[in-house]
């Protein structure tokens, strides 16, 4: 089965594709000298150039499936391409496997549930969660001429990275934390040099800004230690957590987060927090 993989800033989709096939062709939305077999001849700033890039590479390679790294311009181009060609597009999958000869994408949903989705059309189109940069063998790519965009690009500015991404310690706030406890947690964070993050429902309530959401629809964090207060550990949240140690405080003994925690502490956030403050004061 031949799989064509489009990548951008992240390229972990290639590894996922290799798990199910040996016949992989790579193409990069980013102009680069050694990251893929096909690259565009100019910067892709919107979907029009992106769609023409997908079409040209598809024509040259006749893939059975096309995997897309789930990043802004790639997702835009993939979804327009799907609409234009009336092809099924499997959304933001975490995992991919083959069952009865069909490619199945595992799409995370609510309440620790996932939907297993397949496409009825060929080539199979699938968006894969983009998270990591992996190292590849150097190749000299074929340069593809792409269409210009109707949307006139006027300029861009790199914005400051979210401090959560590179934080050494992150304290996460979940629904199990009472409103009046949040300032106290913020104080602790300041003391130990931690960044504050939260789950989506907490941000939706307006208590913490939306740019602090950790997970699928937010930031990916990579701290040494993640301290999770009142977080059950739903997959949408945990998919954004890549920590060496997780310390979780939860009053539900069956909270899924306990299974991945170095220290699964059973207790209420409001009780454990002052004890923790006290111990930190004593030890440091």
């Amino acid at each position, binding site marked *: 089965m031949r799989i064509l993989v489009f990548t951008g800033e992240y390229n972990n989709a290639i590894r996922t594709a290799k798990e199910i096939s040996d016949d992989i062709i790579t193409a990069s939305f980013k102009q680069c000298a050694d990251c893929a077999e096909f690259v565009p001849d100019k910067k892709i700033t919107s979907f029009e150039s992106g769609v023409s890039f997908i079409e040209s590479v598809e024509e040259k390679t006749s893939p059975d499936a096309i995997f897309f790294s789930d990043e802004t311009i790639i997702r*835009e181009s993939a979804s327009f391409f799907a*609409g234009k060609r009336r092809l099924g597009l499997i959304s933001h999958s975490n995992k991919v496997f083959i069952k009865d000869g069909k490619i199945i994408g595992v799409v995370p949903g609510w309440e620790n549930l996932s939907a297993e989705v397949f496409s009825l059309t060929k080539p199979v189109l699938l968006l894969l969660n983009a998270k990591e940069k992996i190292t590849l063998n150097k190749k000299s790519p074929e340069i593809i001429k792409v269409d210009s965009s109707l949307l006139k690009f006027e300029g861009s500015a790199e914005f400051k990275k979210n401090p959560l991404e590179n934080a050494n310690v992150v304290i996460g706030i979940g629904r199990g934390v009472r409103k009046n406890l949040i300032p106290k947690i913020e104080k602790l964070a300041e003391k130990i040099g931690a960044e504050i993050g939260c789950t989506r429902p907490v941000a939706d309530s307006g208590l913490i800004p939306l740019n602090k959401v950790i997970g699928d629809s937010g930031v990916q964090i990579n701290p040494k230690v993640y301290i999770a207060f009142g977080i059950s550990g739903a997959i949408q949240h945990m998919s954004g957590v890549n920590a060496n140690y997780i310390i979780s405080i939860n009053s539900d003994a069956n909270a899924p987060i306990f299974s991945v925690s170095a220290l699964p502490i059973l207790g209420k956030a409001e009780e454990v927090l002052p004890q923790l403050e006290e111990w*930190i004061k004593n030890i440091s």
Partner: protein
Amino acid sequence: MKIVVTVKVVPEKIKFNKETKRIDRSEVKMILNPVDLVAAEEANKLRNSNDELIAISMGPPSAAETLNSLFKYGFDKVYLLSDPAFAGSDTLATAYILSMGIKKLVPDFDIIFQGDYSIDGATGQIPGELAAFLGIPFLTHVNSVNRKEIVRKTETHLERFQFITPVLLSVSDDANYGISPNLFYLKDSIEKNTEIINNDTLKANTEFCGLNGSRTLVSSVVQNEVKTSTEVIKENGAEQAAKLLKEVGII
């Protein structure tokens, strides 16, 4: 200008029946998708007194009641595309039906606003598919719009584009705090009602609608395996946590 906002009616909370493996929609309060209200506020900020603001939704007839609240926000017209033939649509079929609705009801539109995602689906792929069916340019993750330029946010950059019409703009959830009801429109909201449009009027090709028109299918819904730890820490947890922080050099 004619400004269209697509709006989805979604359950406020999801209840999942583990035995039947289906979403339990009975006794669940239905709301307007919050991100669509953020998109509506972008439309509201852009519009002048002679512009028309039109909402288009797709869903069961029961969604009309929830959609009626849109008049409080100053919408001039609210349409609900509803037909048994539309049930079970995936994103591609949904985008097709919405495109037929827009072509039929607001053929001379200038801008279409959408929310980047719905809280009950979150695929984020409708904007691209709808733009393809309408053959118009589009951008997602839009943060602000004025009649000169559009600003959007990718993973690493803020990007500026020249403003053009017709265009489809999918708005980021942090673009604003969402549209607020306005007393000025209160009378409208009492007098006006959502207009339900079925397929006799819309004349969409049923081959492209609902389950017939879907190109992706859900083969099963699985519960993610969760290992529950048997060894939770009941005592001296705070002490161990502090020691761990010390060990890795944080305190």
